[in-house]
């Protein structure tokens, strides 16, 4: 069975065009609100807005939340550890990007 539509499906770029609510981020990552709230409090995720109902997640939040879930669930890292690991991974990614500017891998 194929239900390919004649018109290609258009999407929105999460990192540029969308601001995810707490509920949307939780649905996207299959994670509980309590997890996300803890990550925000520990600084693993950045957020715009004062109270959880008004929170908006932008930029790299989706990627970071997916990674935070893996670190939490599979490696059993606690929230401050998750925040540290995410920051270190970002630093390493930035360094590797700089490195590969200069040298073909």
């Amino acid at each position, binding site marked *: *069975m*194929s*239900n*390919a*539509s004649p*018109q*290609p*499906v*258009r*999407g*929105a*770029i*999460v*990192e*540029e065009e*969308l601001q995810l609510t707490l509920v949307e981020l939780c*649905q*996207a*990552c*299959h*994670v509980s609100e309590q997890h996300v709230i803890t990550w925000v409090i520990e600084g693993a995720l950045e957020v715009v807005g004062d109270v959880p109902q008004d929170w908006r997640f932008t930029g790299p939040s*989706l*990627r970071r939340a*997916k*990674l935070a*879930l*893996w670190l939490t*669930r*599979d*490696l059993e890292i606690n929230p401050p550890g998750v925040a540290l690991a995410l920051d270190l*991974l970002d630093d390493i*990614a930035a360094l590797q*990007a*700089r490195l*590969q*500017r*200069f040298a*073909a*891998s």
Partner: protein
Amino acid sequence: MKFKDYYETFGLPRTASQDEIKRAYRKLARKYHPDVSKDPNAESRFKELGEAYAVLKDPEKRAAYDQVGSQWKSGQDFQPPPGWDAEFGHSGRGTDAGEDLDQSDFFEALFGRQARETRQSNEHARGEDQHAKVMIDLIDAYRGAQRGISLRTPMRDAQGHVVMRERRLDVSIPKGIRAGQHLRLAGQGQPGYGKGLAGDLFLEIGFNPHPQFRVDGRDVFLDLPLAPWEAALGCSIPVPTPEGTLQLTIPAGSAAGRQLRMKGKGIPGDPSGDLYALLRIVLPPAGSENEKAAYRAMAKAFDFNARPFMRGDPP
């Protein structure tokens, strides 16, 4: 469908304890997580690990797997034994929420239905959001593109049974998208339960490696080899860009390692990225007598010390 030896995935014997399985998983998962690993096969390896762990970490699933598993070897053709569904899967424990739905046919045959039936307990729930990764070429980010992807999605057949189906979807890739970004396709995730809405589909974008261009955010880099005289005297040469060839002026006296920026020639956006040519100087080999003579003439013509900062005298 081939039988998968989940113990082999971890390099463990069937007698391994739960702790050993956990340790082996964590060690390998740290090594192969796509955000951590540079291994080209990290993505698929990590998926295999996740699937094997989902089964072996759960004593109930592990027991069920061991029961069938004792009769097969890795890679052998496999069919679930008759009556499999009746024997197993009534505990109401499916795969954890959040586990990737993108499992192998083998996993699906053993544990898929059970997992989905657990999820259906809520009558009119919204369908789950789904994730997939799509690899595009750099040029697709410059021009925008259309990509056909296939997804495995549970659907209801005529008898109302939920079965896994391949679903093809043509996706419009917007111009200016970058590696690591996600596209959200509203309503293209798992179908809703009852009157529930469908979930969304999140597509992570990756770039196929390119032999010539490297990408950092919106900026694109390429190595530009020059002959010594081109770098010394300056020249105008054709340079490949993802969008076609550009004539680039190399200023006289360009040193190796210098980066020439072609403003706005990176990945389009607001602002567009830049394209950088990283100059390399290639030394022509002195093979023939003529070529050697040319080098000797150079040596004579130049009052040049390649090592002005090094003293020949021992300290």
